[in-house]
């Protein structure tokens, strides 16, 4: 489904069109659920967050407009915020495995799963491996600065500055 079709489904959802909302769910939920499963590593919990996400999509569809960018980015944003809240709560309770067991990932290590060679992928490949690992670790797994520092055997301050620099380089590259 192309972006215009997704935006039309959101517009119809704003007006209470349940058929459009279901089509939006069916089109986007496999991507969102994949993201949640990878962040939470718990299928039942990922399903709960998926439910919360689409209840919010229904009630907040009026907040979406094309200037926000792609529909999938908006939905993933809602899902990730909820998942990050849960991950933090789990970490406070000591229910999450430590970062020791996380195999550091670079964009090259994930390229087999990419459907296409996106601009983001090309820009990520220009970053140092440690920047790629930190950004993917934070975004995909929800790791904190402290967890990344432990994993990468670096001071927290170094991890923070490398992420900051990596994001700035990424922005420059994407805007070229």
């Amino acid at each position: 489904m192309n972006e215009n079709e997704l935006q039309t489904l959101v517009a119809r959802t704003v007006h209470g069109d349940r058929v459009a909302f279901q089509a939006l769910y069916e089109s986007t939920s496999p991507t969102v659920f994949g993201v949640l499963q990878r962040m939470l590593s718990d299928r039942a919990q990922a399903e709960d967050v998926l439910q919360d996400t689409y209840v919010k999509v229904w009630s907040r569809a009026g907040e979406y407009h094309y200037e926000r960018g792609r529909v999938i980015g908006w939905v993933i944003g809602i899902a990730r915020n909820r998942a990050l809240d849960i991950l933090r709560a789990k970490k406070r309770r000591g229910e999450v495995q430590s970062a020791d067991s996380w195999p550091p990932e670079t964009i090259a290590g994930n390229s087999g799963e990419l459907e296409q060679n996106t601009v983001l992928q090309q820009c990520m490949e220009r970053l140092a491996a440690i920047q790629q690992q930190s950004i993917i670790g934070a975004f995909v797994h929800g790791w904190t600065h402290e967890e990344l520092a432990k994993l990468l055997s670096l001071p927290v301050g170094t991890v923070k500055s490398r992420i900051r620099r990596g994001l700035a380089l990424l922005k420059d590259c994407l805007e070229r």
Partner: protein
Amino acid sequence: MNIRDPELVDRLASEYVLGTLHGKARQRLETLLIDRDDIRRAVWRWENRLADLSSTTPLLEPSKRVWTRIGDRLGFNDKKQSSGSTFWHLWSAAASLAAVVMAVLLITSTDSGLSPIPTTDNADHIAVVGEGNDPLWLISANLTSGALTARAINAQAAEVDKVFELWMLPTSGDPRSIGILPVSGNTVSHQIPPGLLALLKESKGLAISIEPIGGSPTGLPTGPVVHTATVVGL
């Protein structure tokens, strides 16, 4: 820390979206997101920039029970329409005010002492919401094009964390949301989709309920119905 600095706004937005902004810093940014357009836009841009990182994650089909549960939570699977019944009861009680509302329409639209009130281009239907000489909203629509404009005349915010939601009342079935109404002199425009337009042409009128920010979470009015109005052809 000067959060007016565009570079700092961009950096905080990037770390917010990445998930590395924590604790009070994250809460503070979320508070600022409510009324800082520049910060909201910076967050949107980063959500879009990083969304493709999700394509490194394999697609995963959720089980069918997730959709069933979403439908349960939103009241899609409730055949009793209990909230609808309550709504209709409230609507009936308030409908007698509609004649008064019409008198306000004439006063508002002909008073040369007022500045022009924005209406939909080529409006062929209009409704005024309010009581006596206190019109709250002027709603105008072109039922051919589907354009609808709602202007807040005297309407002010219901509560800090509440909004007014406009509903169309079909001749049968549940109320249908048209959108969130503006307050404090603002104007909003909505495009009514064709399916809803056909219902609106035959509708019993409009109603306004008080809902949480973002509108009713269920697709039906959840808060009190505070106003109703009749749609009148011009």
